[in-house]
């Protein structure tokens, strides 16, 4: 028995003792319910199916994204700024729906970071040559209004995206302990990014499209929960339905969020509430033989 499993058994015993006295009251909106007693250990092989489905999902979105970037390139060649902005936004959403944000939480390593990184942390900030990808083009289009630069930066973005081949993708989405752990974390980290970078406008370089971004993040989170659902359901029976309800609340509040502080507070609250629900997912999916 691995050390991890041993500690799990101990925790379960402690848990059974505690749930008997039934404490921890939370507001109904953040309650995902208890962990089921004696959840069966998860073997690495059980993640083969979910990961395969997710890969298919990624390829589908990449297939949508590539022609969108080609159109963006044409807009720029035609010196059409408004078309370029529109097509940049479309491409951006396709990318976000994959579930990739900046390199902080991203599962696509350095390549993901180059495609979706921020200028902060780079010497020279937005002027740094290392500032590449979606946000670089956003900066060109919406902040410096430099279509010439946008053209070169879009070419660079396209070449980065073209490196997202099955070889590189499966390297990051592998059945190794490290990459499985990182991948499962996405169940809440995609939305963590939404809260931390989009709703704070920390990742905004002028497009102000944080609401659409959060919406795309919700889509990606749904995909994660859908592929991992069969593993989550028996282990935390209340979680999926609570999360589904909370994600619908986010959708509704995004639609209503264009009006002032109160509406924005309500959106922030709904994202935060969903995050509390999703936080245990990566702990519930403890893969017993991942480190064998």
């Amino acid at each position, binding site marked *: 028995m691995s050390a991890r499993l041993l*500690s*799990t058994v*101990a*925790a*379960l015993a*402690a*848990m059974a003792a*505690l*749930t008997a006295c039934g*404490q*921890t*009251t*939370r*507001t*109904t*909106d*953040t309650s995902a319910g*208890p*962990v089921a007693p004696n*959840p069966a250990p998860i073997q690495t092989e059980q993640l083969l199916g979910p990961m395969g489905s997710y890969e298919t999902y990624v390829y589908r979105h990449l297939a949508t994204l590539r022609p969108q970037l080609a159109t963006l390139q044409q807009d720029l060649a035609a010196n059409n700024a408004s078309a370029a902005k529109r097509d940049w936004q479309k491409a951006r959403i396709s990318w976000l729906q994959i579930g990739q944000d900046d390199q902080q939480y991203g599962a696509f390593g350095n390549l993901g970071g180059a495609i979706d990184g921020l200028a902060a942390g780079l010497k020279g900030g937005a002027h740094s040559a290392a500032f590449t990808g979606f946000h670089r083009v956003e900066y060109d289009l919406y902040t410096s209004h430099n279509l010439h630069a946008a053209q070169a930066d879009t070419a660079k973005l396209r070449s980065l995206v073209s490196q997202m081949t099955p070889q590189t993708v499966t390297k990051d989405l592998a059945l190794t302990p490290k990459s499985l752990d990182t991948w499962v974390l996405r169940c809440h980290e995609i939305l963590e990014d939404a809260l931390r970078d989009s709703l704070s406008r920390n990742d905004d370089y002028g497009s102000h499209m944080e609401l659409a971004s959060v919406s795309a993040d919700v889509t990606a989170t749904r995909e994660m929960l859908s592929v991992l659902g069969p593993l989550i359901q028996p*282990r*935390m029976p209340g979680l999926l339905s609570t999360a589904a309800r*909370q994600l619908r*609340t986010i959708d509704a509040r995004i639609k209503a969020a264009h009006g002032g*502080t*109160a509406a924005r*507070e*309500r959106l*922030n*609250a*709904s994202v*935060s*509430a969903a*995050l*509390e629900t999703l*936080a*245990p997912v990566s*702990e*519930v999916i*403890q893969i017993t033989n991942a480190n064998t």
Partner: protein
Amino acid sequence: MSDTDRRNFLRRAGIVGAGALGAGALSGQADSANLLADGAPQNQAGADPAATLPAVPFHGTHQAGILTPRQPAGAWVAFDVTADTRQQLTDLFKAITNEVRFLTAGGVRPDPHGTFAPPTDSGTLGTDVPADGLTATLGVGASLFDHRFGLAAYRPRRLQAMTPFPNDNLDPARTGGDLLLQLCAGSQDTVLHALRQITRVTRGGMQIRWCEDGFASPARPTGVPRNHFAFKDGIANPLPDAAPQLLWAAASEPAWTRGGTYHVVRIIQMFTEFWDRVSTQEQQQMIGRNRDSGAPLDGSKETDTPHYGADPAGNVIPLTAHIRVANPRTAKTEKERIYRRGYNYDRGVDLNGNLDMGLLFNAFCQDLDRQYIAIQNRLVGEPMVDYISPVGGGYFFALPGVRDKSDHFAAGLLTLSSGAR
């Protein structure tokens, strides 16, 4: 905390031997033993940062944190409710109640999900959470009584939005709110731990609108602590005996408010650079007290009572002095008196390079109009206004106390409004 622990804390804090702080001094129902002769609460500033304050009982007719002697650290956090329904609002108040009940008692928090979820406590106070004199005082703002939850008919009669007085410069982002939580404790980490735990269990139900940290200085060198203008602040307060007439909700208020009180918070920036360019003499004329001793200008000790009757022309204490205008001590103004519980704040630097410091004016009273607003209207244009600028705050109604384990915050209000009047 055992008695020995408490004695140790008090000794380390330099309070034992002062004689003013008896056992139970931190209990929610402050008795006059906790107060100076003039009714001012003793300060609880600690000298040893590792020492913690004894627990303050959470259950009671009134909330703690109102007559409780000032603890060294505090935070004032206004929230907007983001819940959609009355049921969710009730759940929100229940979740706050349960969390505060745990935090004010302290102990090891259960982790019902074991290793299958992140730990339920942030751990910033260690595994065995000390109570550290924590009080969490919850109030409701006028905006909670709008159309959303069907509470309009039950609004406390004097509860209103804070509108600017002539010398104000209120920032809407730092003014108002559906709820106000005053957290006070032995130290700042205890306050912030409480804030993190409370917001964590209420994520979907409320969002922070504004948040201000405050601190009560230690005695310099003795007596009531000083504010950023160097004057001892918190000397003159009504005695707890007068609470039925001056503090707790009046009989004319809706029945559910019994045991509650109006809570006024004003975030008042103090232009300390400007103030420091003023002579001591002029400073004292503005306040009406001696800067060093805290005594009224016609007295010798901070506990002395000013005698305005003997000085009708204001030769000793000017007619425009802050303390004289705020409380002229006439028969007519007796019923205007308020319970002040102010804290200093420090929030960095202003755009012009001046320090952004001030007073978290924090007071409780039975009737907003008759007391706080009447005083504030009289203070309009006082000489001190040149040196201060109120930038935010709000009016709230601090809820009745949570009576026992089966009760929760706002239970009286929410049962009423869910049907039976």
